[in-house]
């Protein structure tokens, strides 16, 4: 028993020593897009566990607040789920695309519609088109399934289709899984979900003739997508800790975490 104890103590102290070897202290503060919560939290957790003593913070305020925060120096890295505007770039900010977030438009497998234009999708969600026959399907009313107010996917979908605040949802569900289950159960339903979480129980429709895949999201031909961006100040260097987080986030090592979080890595 004593021997086992000793051995254990030895192993633990070795582990502790190894932990010390990688020690960087300091903080990395990020601020911005609520849609990026899953991605950035996963990256932050991994970074924290790899570098003991580092504190990683994420403040979910929204893309514009995040950009403002980094401009005013209130955080190290700003998070934005849209590209920077020209005037924001003129104020000395640079953008680095971290990943792309593809949003799949899903319908019931029994639905005969395979392809929708972005315009039609917007018209469907704003209630201008209410019957599937208007877009080449059966004569059946369209049931609009969406996410709750404040959800990143909803925000992304509505901003890409330019239907902000105008969607006539029949159901507002609180998770991607619920949206998929509901669409798979209702032959007239249409919904949207993060590309990575789509399952076989629903049919993904083409948008403007393009099937959403990792490849079409990456080359930009699939349009229902948005970038996840790291915003930094161009004229000012990041602290060592923040820089090493930045390097880690955009490196190939982060790809697996990004894929797990449901987005398409750039590298």
């Amino acid at each position: 028993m004593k021997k086992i104890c000793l051995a254990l103590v030895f192993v633990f102290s070795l582990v502790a020593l190894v932990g010390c070897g990688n020690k960087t202290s300091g903080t990395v503060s990020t601020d911005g897009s609520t849609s990026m919560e899953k991605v950035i939290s996963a990256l932050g957790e991994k970074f924290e566990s790899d570098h003991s003593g580092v504190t990683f913070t994420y403040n979910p305020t929204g893309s514009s607040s995040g950009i403002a925060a980094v401009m005013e120096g209130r955080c190290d890295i700003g998070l934005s789920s849209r590209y920077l505007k020209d005037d924001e770039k003129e104020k000395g900010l640079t953008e680095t695309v971290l990943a792309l977030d593809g949003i799949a438009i899903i319908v019931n497998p029994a639905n005969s519609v395979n392809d929708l234009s972005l315009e039609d999708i917007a018209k469907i969600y704003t209630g201008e088109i209410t019957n599937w026959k208007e877009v080449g399907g059966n004569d059946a009313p369209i049931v609009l399934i969406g996410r709750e107010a404040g959800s990143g996917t909803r925000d992304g979908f509505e901003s890409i289709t330019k239907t902000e605040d105008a969607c006539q949802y029949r159901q507002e569900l609180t998770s991607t899984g619920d949206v998929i289950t509901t669409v798979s159960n209702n032959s007239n339903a249409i919904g949207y979900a993060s590309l990575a979480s789509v399952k076989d129980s629903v049919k993904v429709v083409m948008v403007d003739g393009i099937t959403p895949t990792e490849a079409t999201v990456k080359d930009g031909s699939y349009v229902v997508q948005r970038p996840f961006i790291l915003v930094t100040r161009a004229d000012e260097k990041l602290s060592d800790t923040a820089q090493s987080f930045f390097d880690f986030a955009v490196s190939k090592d982060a790809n697996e975490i990004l894929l797990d979080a449901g987005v398409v890595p750039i590298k």
Partner: protein
Amino acid sequence: MENIIHGIFLLLGLITVGCVLLMTIYLIISGIPAIREVGLFHFLFGKEWAPVLAEPKYGILPFILTSIYGTAGAVFIGVPIGFMTAVYLAKLAHPKIKSVVSNAVSLLAGIPSVVYGLVGMMVLVPQISTLFHIPDGSGLLAAIIVLAIMILPSIIKMSLTALEAVPKDYEDASLALGATPVETYFRVSVPAAKSGIATAIVFGIGRAIGEAMAVMMVAGNAPNMPSIFQSVRFLTTAIASEMSYSAGLQRQALFSIALVLFLFIMLINTALNFFLKREKVE
């Protein structure tokens, strides 16, 4: 020794009281600011809930009405079924049937609400859609049916206990006077157990108004004014569905909804206490 044990029990009791106090105070403190900002009248009687609009609207009348209609509907369906089942089990059922049904009811009480929601979502909602020829079956009706089933066990169990507590002498007297058994049960046993049955109903109302998970999965959750096939949002689901991403005034408003819900539940509990006290007096 006696004193120490007394102290321990007192402490444990105080923990419960402390929790209730803490939650009440916290709810009031975090619920008031949004009501103040939006205005009590606009908050309670506003017909539109759109927290992420450029000009956000925070009206919770649809949620309040949905909660009231939904609960009323569940009671309307659940109470007759539950009450009759209790009368049957207490007075008419063969002992073997009684034990089977009682066990089934206990089992029903033990099923987690998310399972009710799931079954509702997979079975009930598509059925409503085909039965009534509407494009989507989720909505107030689906929620009412799920809630009605969920309140059945408490109504049956509590009514059953009340009915079984009626002294046998009452019934024997009635039977001896020439009343038929069914007449006896409805004219003698039920009136004698009425405060217990009333307690069961109020308890059912409390359960129905406080349920969130199962309702969220079948009600559709669009903040519409309630109507039977419409996609609706309850007070509980309004909080649950938006809490995870909310910030600022939206989040404060969710706490205000919680405060309103809390007041509703306090009201129901007061009613419950009233019936319980009356039962003791009798």
